[in-house]
């Protein structure tokens, strides 16, 4: 869809209704972020299950969905990961038609930089793995990096850029519009989106969950699906189960607005920054997680300082840019840097968590697979490998290399 990227179209005042909760639903989704809203949409659109509520403690898409750097890519190493992220990327490619709503998905490509010989070896290995899995990928040398992104400094820095993996179909989208698009269509299909409704407990009959206690009263449910990112452990405690999650603060920031100078997305594991330029012109930069666990929705200043040092070294023309706004969100990190999606030890209670620092890109694919899981009680082929049981069987999916931000 064509648009002037600096002049976004206006949208109507209200895109969805604000209903009172009913006493009972077939499916209750806890968490009205990207994953929860997408799950609700696919439940209604693909499975015909419309007696669904999405319960949100605050306002829709006001958590990590409002705080991320919107990078979308599928160049992960292992078969299981590239399957779900590539399925997600294919959904991104048709999402505007599916939802009848602009989300400003811009396939401007992503460069994952290699700064050391070991980086180069790992990158080439990942490119070849991607090709075998049908994911578009190539390894480009330093000249190729400069050609794709002329503002990069490849030589005059402590760890020179030796090359990069390049995925042309990767890109960015406008996170708020993605949430609004899913919310609008889900509401049209009959889903109740209930805001200011915090889950305070679970109602169980034996080992089966049959409802949730909320700040707006008890709501009965056939099945309950958690989609609450960094708050998963807190809710799991209420349900009497344990999840292998550690919650960490993750920060990002934007600069003031600039003319278009940055044509693609650049990520560097090694010197630790990732940068794109938003449609309106802000430079959007992500930092690493704070090393300690925390729920404060803010991070440490020295993390931002290190990230800025890396950004200016890599992009000398950013040296005069001013930071407009910084923010922090709470991300849910697993030991193998891969998500958890599927059954829990409590019957009819399902969990979708552990996306760590990169859950935004997975919104459509995870929503599709989680909707299948909630509709049938069985995992979709895409999320079967990401079960909670893998921590017992040992079938871990170690994506520390491709997860971009060191966990």
């Amino acid at each position, binding site marked *: 869809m064509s648009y002037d990227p600096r002049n976004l179209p206006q949208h109507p005042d209200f895109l969805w209704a604000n209903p009172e909760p009913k006493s009972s639903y077939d499916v209750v989704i806890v968490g009205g972020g990207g994953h929860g809203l997408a799950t609700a949409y696919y439940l209604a659109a693909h499975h015909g299950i419309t007696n669904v509520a999405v319960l949100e403690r605050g306002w829709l898409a006001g958590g990590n969905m409002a705080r991320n750097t919107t990078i979308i890519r599928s160049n992960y190493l292992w078969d299981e990961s590239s399957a779900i992220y590539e399925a997600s990327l294919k959904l991104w490619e048709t999402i505007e038609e599916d939802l009848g709503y602009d989300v400003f998905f811009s396939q401007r490509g992503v460069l994952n930089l290699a700064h050391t010989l070991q980086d180069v070896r790992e990158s080439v290995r990942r490119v070849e793995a991607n090709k075998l899995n049908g994911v578009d990928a190539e390894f480009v040398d330093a000249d190729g990096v400069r050609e794709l992104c002329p503002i990069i400094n490849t030589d005059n820095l402590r760890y020179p850029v030796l090359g990069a993996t390049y995925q042309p179909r990767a890109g960015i989208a406008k996170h708020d519009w993605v949430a609004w698009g899913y919310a609008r269509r889900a509401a049209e299909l009959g889903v109740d989106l209930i805001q200011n409704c915090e889950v305070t407990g679970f109602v169980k009959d034996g080992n089966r969950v049959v409802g949730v206690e909320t700040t707006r009263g008890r709501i009965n449910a056939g099945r309950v699906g958690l989609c609450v990112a960094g708050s998963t452990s807190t809710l799991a405690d209420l349900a009497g189960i*344990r999840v292998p999650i*550690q919650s960490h603060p993750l920060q990002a920031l934007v600069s003031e607005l600039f003319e278009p100078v940055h044509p693609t997305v650049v990520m560097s594991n090694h010197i630790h920054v990732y940068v794109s330029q938003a449609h309106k012109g802000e430079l959007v930069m992500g930092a690493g997680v704070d*090393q300690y*666990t925390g*729920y*404060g929705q803010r991070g*440490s*200043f020295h993390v931002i300082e290190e990230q800025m040092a890396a950004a200016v070294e890599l992009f000398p023309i950013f040296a005069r840019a001013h930071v407009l706004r910084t923010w922090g969100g709470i991300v849910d990190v697993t030991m193998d840097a891969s998500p958890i999606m599927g059954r829990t030890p409590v019957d009819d209670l399902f969990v979708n968590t552990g996306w760590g620092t990169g859950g935004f890109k997975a919104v459509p694919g995870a929503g599709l697979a989680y909707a299948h899981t909630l509709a049938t009680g069985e995992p979709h082929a895409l999320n079967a490998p990401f079960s909670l049981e893998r921590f*017992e069987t040992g079938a871990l999916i170690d994506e520390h290399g491709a997860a971009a931000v060191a966990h």
Partner: protein
Amino acid sequence: MLIIDCPHCGPRHEQEFHYGRQAHVAYPADPSALTDEEWAHYLFYRDNPRGPHAERWVHSAGCRKWFNVVRDTLTYEIKAVYRAGEQPPPEYAALARPGAVAGTAPETTKEA
């Protein structure tokens, strides 16, 4: 940035330290007797509370010694610092039993 009061060196900036995750997780007394579920809990499951949390830190750019900290994960306030091998202050005694607060850990992963 946290200022952490190393029990050996005194207060220093957080950047001199590395985080070592939950404290008081005991190595299983009889490892060969553990089921796969119990091993999973020992290896991969750690408490993740909103509030006071007993955790290990190492003063990597200082004395290089490990020690324990009780830190509030919501306010990031450090409530107590004590040496490796010591127990937390009495008001945080429950934090020395991982999984005990939520009552969800298998018996074998709870410290005796």
